[in-house]
């Protein structure tokens, strides 16, 4: 029973980090119709910047703020200087389908190399902002720690903030409108290109948080966020790729499922576990758990 509970709680904490990455992916997908594989790279670079600040000032939260800012700037920059150019050039021919995917892969590689050149490949670790000592319930101490709790709370706050932005502000309205009907949004006077860049910026900032939180309980290296990207993507697909709420639910499901696999089945099945969850969802509910009968043909 206790193992069940701790697995669930840790899964929740893991899943909430996936949720951030998957939201970032969904935001970009909705605005640009691109699955941004470079999101892992952007998050990584932001996290390295946050890491530098957090290590030098010894204030984790300052590092987190800087990572958010860096992530947002980076996201906006990628859209403004990269995606716009890309869409101007790569529009037709056999590669048109693959061009955006491959471009973001290239960008991921580029950021990774740059980070590697600057910081090297060594594992870095950030001093966690909360104790990693597990909570004690009665006699026993469980691996679920204040840090895990803090991660869940932080993600929760960010999700609420995003919900407010999207539901209650003009910016949110523009973002939603541009995502669902760009032409109409344009006619309504929304500057869709700018709105899109803002969407990228928000995604970048959220990715930065994901990177920092992931690093607080783990190591940081030029490759350390790759899995986060893969799991974030799977979570987004579980949620239907369009829905932010769906992607959060998908991420939590995935996080808990994978932690159960980890605790009850075996460590090496975690990776393939993600794939299996993805395939099962695609077969059973091909449009994601939040689908309302839309066909999944691009």
């Amino acid at each position, binding site marked *: 029973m206790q193992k069940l509970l701790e697995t669930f709680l840790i899964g929740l904490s893991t899943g909430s980090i996936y949720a951030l990455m998957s939201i970032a992916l969904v935001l970009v997908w909705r605005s640009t119709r691109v699955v941004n594989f470079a999101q892992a790279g952007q998050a990584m670079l932001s996290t390295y910047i946050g890491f530098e600040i957090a290590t030098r000032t010894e204030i984790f939260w300052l590092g987190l703020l800087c990572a958010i800012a860096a992530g947002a700037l980076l996201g906006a920059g990628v859209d403004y200087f990269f995606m716009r150019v890309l869409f101007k050039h790569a529009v037709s021919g056999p590669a048109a389908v693959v061009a955006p995917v491959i471009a973001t892969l*290239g960008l991921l590689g580029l950021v990774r*190399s740059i980070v590697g050149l600057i910081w090297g490949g060594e594992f870095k670790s950030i001093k966690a902002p909360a104790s990693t000592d597990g909570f004690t319930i009665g006699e026993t101490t469980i691996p679920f720690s204040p840090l895990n709790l803090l991660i869940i709370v932080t993600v929760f706050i960010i999700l609420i903030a995003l919900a407010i932005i999207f539901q209650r502000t003009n910016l949110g309205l523009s973002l939603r409108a541009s995502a669902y009907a760009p032409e109409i949004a344009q006619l309504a006077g929304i500057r869709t290109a700018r709105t899109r860049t803002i969407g990228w910026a928000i995604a970048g900032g959220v990715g930065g948080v994901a990177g920092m939180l992931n690093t607080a309980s783990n190591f940081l290296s030029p490759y350390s966020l790759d899995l986060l990207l893969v799991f974030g993507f799977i979570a987004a697909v579980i949620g239907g790729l369009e829905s932010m709420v769906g992607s959060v639910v998908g991420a939590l499901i995935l996080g808990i499922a994978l932690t159960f696999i980890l605790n009850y089945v075996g460590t090496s099945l975690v990776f393939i576990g993600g794939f299996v969850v993805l395939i099962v969802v695609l077969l059973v509910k091909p449009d994601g758990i939040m689908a309302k009968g839309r066909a999944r043909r691009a």
Partner: protein
Amino acid sequence: MRKKLALFILLGWILLLIGDRVDELRVYQGAQIAMYAIALSSIVLLTGYSGQVSLGNGAMMAVGGYAAALTLNNLGSPVWFAFVMAVFVSALFGAFLGAAAARLSGPYLAGTTLALAVGLPEIANQFDFLGGVPGLLFDVGFPPERLGEEFTQYKWFFWIATFLALLSLFITSNILQSRYGRTWRAIRSNSLAAELSGVHAGRMKILAFTISSAIAGLAGAVLAMTISLVAPGAYTLALSFALVTGAVLAGVSSLPGVVFGALILVAIPEVADVLATRWGGDENLNNYLPGLIVSVLLILSVIFTPNGPGEKLKSRHHKKA
């Protein structure tokens, strides 16, 4: 067709001559180029022709590699049969995968295959008969003695890899130039119109996946041969990414381009090495310069010649015409 066959035989002969005249490192790299050429042609067929994006060809290669190693080690079969099994098993795997993939498009397919590329090689860690992290040996044996004392192991690899590459490129190019290739291009271009023309788009897509996977499986077995083992570490996400990169640099829909793409994949680390040494030989530079060069090339080519340098040439010709 005869002409093409003659061309391939001539090419093989030239490569053999080259193999006799260069040192062992180049011979070894030659084998790698051949391996990449096979692997890239699987992407050209799948992505360039049938329009299905796969980031998981590394996983298909792993299936082929493991199938070959298991066949050779457990059945004690001749080497050629191990390669045949690599093709066969990975084709089967591709058919299953393709059946699922035919229902997906664009980003879903890319992401699903990405998850596969990450997950599949890890299965080896779960089951003992797959050898875990150290992997399984895949030993094609020493070259026949009558080839002489001077005939090294790597030259033997080079011969086998080159032969398999030429064979598979010959077959692939035939398929792509036949009605199958044409039909795939039609589906990629407009799948509804293709269906109305009597094409079973779903079935053809699965067929593309099957053939592509078979080719990738062969490449996986050749890779296993050149390093004498199959291990999860040989079929990483990085390999899948490198293949996509090579395919884009080759021009995703150009089969002759794959040789060029393969050459680049092998040459980039060399070039990076030279540059890194010249710029001071810093450790980080050594480690990350190849990645930097590849990424920059990839980005530039996606932006400026998304359909490969060949396509640019072609369209220029067309404009003149």
